[in-house]
């Protein structure tokens, strides 16, 4: 009994880990294909059918390049920078619920690394740590441009974390739970949070763009001003890790957006599919297949948001740094506070009124 649960959990964690890496790997290919489509060109099409082997070729190239450390760099911190970036990027997926439960041998196991009652706080903490990889790497390079990139990344992340946390509070007020699994199961049956929190969603989306250092907020690696930003001195697989961590962050933040606002593994007509499957295949197999369909839907939503990131990247120009700070502090934070007040008022007054009208 204990052992079955343990094995299913281990398999879940391993599969999630591998899927995160594979999705991040193929996001680099997808990014170039989307860029090609938007700019009316082909994108990578030489390595394999449709350029599908391009990520492998890139990884091979990265591994075989010279692993160079500048003479005056702080050696250990120079190595610690990209490692920390990868570590923090991979940590966050531990609490995301990827599906409902798997039934095996009479045991029900949740498709989630850790079911914690502080899930969303954990994610927030890991996001807050994400900036250390960039800061340490930028400082250890002993290069003014790298340092400026690192400083920009730090101030940008701290500024946008405030608005991000405030937009999350509105969600927490509605669901009255910090557990991600609980938040998802409350959105069952088309009750997605996006319908109640459109403003909060827009604030959260903007802040997650800023936290991932993606265009239009990619000031830390702004090549017109800072050469290469915080990874100017990096080459070989250490640079690869930085770029890879960015794609993992994209996937994780897309997964969190779909968990918080788009119902996670819930989809319209879920109960009907569940009843059909359990009626025809039995309560164990049918249940498991229904869960896997939900997981597939979840990954579909996450992939859509990855596409959205790329779409924005190849559509919008970059902000200027003062515009970025003004947007963060003077627009998004007041908007998030207004959103909290509106949500509080609706939960207190509007919700009882509507329920009394309906009954």
């Amino acid at each position, binding site marked *: 009994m204990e052992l079955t649960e343990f094995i299913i959990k281990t398999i879940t964690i391993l599969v999630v880990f591998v899927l995160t890496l594979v999705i991040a790997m193929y996001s680099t290919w997808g990014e170039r294909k989307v860029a090609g489509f938007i700019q009316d060109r082909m994108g990578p099409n030489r390595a394999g059918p449709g350029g599908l082997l391009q990520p492998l070729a890139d990884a091979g190239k990265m591994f075989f390049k010279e692993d160079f450390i500048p003479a005056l760099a702080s050696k250990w911190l120079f190595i610690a920078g990209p490692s920390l970036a990868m570590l923090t990027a991979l940590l966050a997926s531990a609490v995301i619920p990827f599906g409902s439960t798997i039934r095996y041998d009479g045991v029900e196991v949740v498709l989630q690394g850790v079911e914690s*009652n*502080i899930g969303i706080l*954990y994610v*927030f903490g890991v996001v807050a740590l994400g900036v*250390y990889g960039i*800061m340490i790497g930028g400082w250890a390079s002993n290069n003014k441009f790298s*340092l400026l990139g690192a400083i920009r990344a*730090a101030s940008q992340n*701290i500024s946008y974390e405030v608005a991000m946390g405030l937009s999350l509070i509105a969600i927490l007020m509605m669901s009255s739970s910090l557990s991600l699994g609980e938040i998802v199961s409350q959105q069952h049956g088309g009750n997605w949070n996006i319908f109640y929190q459109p403003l909060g969603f827009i604030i959260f989306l903007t802040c997650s763009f800023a936290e991932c250092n993606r265009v239009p907020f990619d000031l830390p690696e702004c090549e017109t001003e800072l050469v290469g930003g915080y990874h100017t001195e990096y080459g070989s697989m250490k640079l690869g890790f930085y770029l890879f961590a960015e794609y993992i962050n994209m996937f994780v933040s897309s997964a969190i957006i779909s968990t918080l606002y788009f119902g996670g593994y819930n989809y319209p007509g879920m109960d009907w599919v569940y009843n059909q499957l359990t009626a025809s295949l039995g309560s164990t197999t049918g249940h498991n297949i229904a869960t896997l369909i939900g997981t597939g839907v979840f990954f579909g939503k996450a992939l859509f948001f990855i596409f959205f990131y790329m779409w924005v990247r190849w559509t919008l120009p970059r902000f200027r740094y003062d515009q970025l700070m003004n947007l963060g502090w003077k627009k998004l934070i007041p908007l998030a506070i207004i959103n909290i007040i509106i949500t509080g008022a609706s939960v207190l007054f509007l919700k009882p009124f509507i329920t009394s009208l309906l009954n």
Partner: protein
Amino acid sequence: MNPTLSFFYFLSFLTVLSALMVILSKNPIHSVLYLILTFFTLSGHYILLNAQFLAAVNIIVYAGAIMVLFLFVIMFLNVKDVHEEAKNSLTKIAAAIVGGTVFVILFGAYRKTIIAPADPNNFDSQVGMIESLGKLLFREYLLPFELASILLLVAMVGAVMLGKREIGERHF
């Protein structure tokens, strides 16, 4: 030895080691990084005490925000080539006396402390969870909680006032 106890010893060893490294390392950046490690190990202790909310908030507030600003300032100041002659022997003696006195006071206080024995039968393991903490904060300790928030608001307004540009001041 049961796993919790051995984990506790391991964490305590790491905490003391990283706290020592904060004051022993020559480079201020290394000191800050060791301080961050200390916060992590302290969060580990909170989790061992079943206080998950405190652990998460410790990471978010201290490691995630305050230490980033610390690192930020130290990187800008570039304290690496601080003048060695500023630390003459008088400063060292004064520092040693102050540090030693604090140590003696803390040690004496620690020896006199009577730790209330925990009753394993009536102990509520959920006391550190966020639900019970929230109920306690918003019912019994509502006034201190609100007063603390007003204090923070005043501090924030003060910081904004200090940082505000005066009329006629140059844009640099």
